[in-house]
């Protein structure tokens, strides 16, 4: 630990907790953390209860070794074991296959032939969405299942079937939901990794763009008070709780996962703590609302499903709005200079339409705050969690995560620019 000395009676305050990064070729304590350090970090950075469980689980299982992707037949066995306890009567499965998409979770598809209590004899294309041993985001399948179920009449989402939140039947926590037909990008597009920077032609933008805005407004104005969202902490309007939990989650991840110290991360965390807004309206937030996370039908240009709800929480709408406008997810119109949010809508038009449709006010100061927070979170997770997962061989997507490191520095540069611009 660094010691600070003083003459003339002046001292520089020390942080209450700081575990420095180690050199690359050394043994890292973060590769096999002990209970005492796990607990100290937990106490230093309080987060939502369910995230606390997930992050603690991640740290306690970190030393268990590298990840081995189940074979197709092993996965089929887990599926059958699960269905034996969840489906009444006879059933059969077919078309088992791994699916691609996403940088963090495993997706296994199959067709289920069964007697659905509500519909009778049915055949459903189904997806098992499951954790690897460790991933880019330590998130909760229980939360994801609850929010997708709650959203079924709000925006297009997969049909929820069952969940295995503790990994009792599957090797890791999993949800089972319906397969949604559609594509994340036009067949002509060569997008960047993980669906970022998708290029939509103008005629497609004209139809997808309004849906994109309308759906976000619908999510943010959804009355969640009667929904079963027991895995979510509900922040009180008039408090800073939601933002504190989010900042602490990133700080905790930084402390748990990082491979190198970056002074900017520390100073920005302090800025975020000092400038935290008070919540004026508690909305459901998607958490990763962008192109790449919705499917659409190429023939009709209609959005068929919103996916990847793992970063969902209840909080300030400006968080999603700032996320949508992150430059990493966007690109430029044909003129080469008009920035399009998520490759779909010019930014000002998106913000104007959102206010008109949702009836919710956009506060530039809050939007600026969440631009800083989001970019800070991206830097933290893309630099620290990706490194730790790749170093320890913890996921089926290690090669993709190794490439994700390249996304850190455009974001880090943006972070400095956003701070300079102010609101």
């Amino acid at each position: 630990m660094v010691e600070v000395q003083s003459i003339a009676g002046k001292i520089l305050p020390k942080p209450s907790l700081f575990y420095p990064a180690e050199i690359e070729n050394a043994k890292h304590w973060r590769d096999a953390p002990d209970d005492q350090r796990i607990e100290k970090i937990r106490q230093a950075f309080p987060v939502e209860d369910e995230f606390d469980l997930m992050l603690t689980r991640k740290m306690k299982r970190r030393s268990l070794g590298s990840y081995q992707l189940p074979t197709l037949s092993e996965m089929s066995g887990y599926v059958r074991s699960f269905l034996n306890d969840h489906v009444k009567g006879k059933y059969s499965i077919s078309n088992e296959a791994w699916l691609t998409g996403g940088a963090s979770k495993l997706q296994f598809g199959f067709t289920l032939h069964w007697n659905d209590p509500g519909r009778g004899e049915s055949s459903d294309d189904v997806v098992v969405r499951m954790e690897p041993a460790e991933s880019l985001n330590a998130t909760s399948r229980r939360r994801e299942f609850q929010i997708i179920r709650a959203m079924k009449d709000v925006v297009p989402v997969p049909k929820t079937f069952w969940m295995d939140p503790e990994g009792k039947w599957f090797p890791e926590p999993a949800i089972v939901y319906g397969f949604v037909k559609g594509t994340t990008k036009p067949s002509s597009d060569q997008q960047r990794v993980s669906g970022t920077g998708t290029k939509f032609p103008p005629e497609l933008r004209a139809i997808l763009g309004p849906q994109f805005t309308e759906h976000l407004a619908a999510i943010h104005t959804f009355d969640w008070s009667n929904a079963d969202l027991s895995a979510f902490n509900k922040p009180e309007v008039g408090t800073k709780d939601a933002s504190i939990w989010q900042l602490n989650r990133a700080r905790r991840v930084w402390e748990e996962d990082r491979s190198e110290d970056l002074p900017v991360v520390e100073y920005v965390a302090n800025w975020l703590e000092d400038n935290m807004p008070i919540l004026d309206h508690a909305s459901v937030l998607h958490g990763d609302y962008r192109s790449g996370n919705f499917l659409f039908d190429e023939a009709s240009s209609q959005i068929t499903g919103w996916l990847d709800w793992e970063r969902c929480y209840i909080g300030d709408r400006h968080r999603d709005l700032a996320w949508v406008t992150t430059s990493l997810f966007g690109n430029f119109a044909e003129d080469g200079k008009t920035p399009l949010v998520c490759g779909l809508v010019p930014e000002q038009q998106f913000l104007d339409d959102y206010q008109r449709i949702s009836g919710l006010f956009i506060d530039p100061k809050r939007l600026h705050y969440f631009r800083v927070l989001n970019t800070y979170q991206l830097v933290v997770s893309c630099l620290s969690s990706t490194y730790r997962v790749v170093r320890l061989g913890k996921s089926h997507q290690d090669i993709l995560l190794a490439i994700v490191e390249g996304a850190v520095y455009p974001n880090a540069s943006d972070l400095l620019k956003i701070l300079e611009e102010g609101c």
Partner: protein
Amino acid sequence: MGDRSISGLKACIASLDKIIGPVVEKSGDTLAREQLALMSKYLSFLTERLDYSRGRERFELHQYIVMGNEILAILGRANINHQELAASIESAQTSLSKPEAAAEELDRVGVSLRATISFIARGLIQAENKIRKEIESVIHHRSKSIFELRRAWFKPLAWEADQNAVPDLEKLLYGTAR
């Protein structure tokens, strides 16, 4: 014997693209197909960057030494004698001045210096406002060149919407394209 790592890497890429790729394509395994393309992309990236690794390490260490010295000066003006920072800077400077310094040595002194500055930065939230603002300003402005370099480093992975806006690595490292 000359270093033939780049030729070896190029052979790996050719094998993946020309021999293994078509077989995986026919197999219909979408995850394997996706990962094969990513492997080829990452190996191509390494092929382009391997020669510059040492230059990058030295460039970054120099930037952190400059950052550390400016922070030390701010603390000195406030009558705060930060021996740990001074020692980290001195070690880093000594290693950087040795052309023969091994990568591991540069890594070790760089890690120590970054940790010391980061420790100071984290504690600033409770510090006197004037000192805090001055140090944060140094961190902010001195980090720019480090992030520019890393953007240039990762340019072959094509993360940025406007690739033309990404700085040129050789220009940053050597002042001109080689």
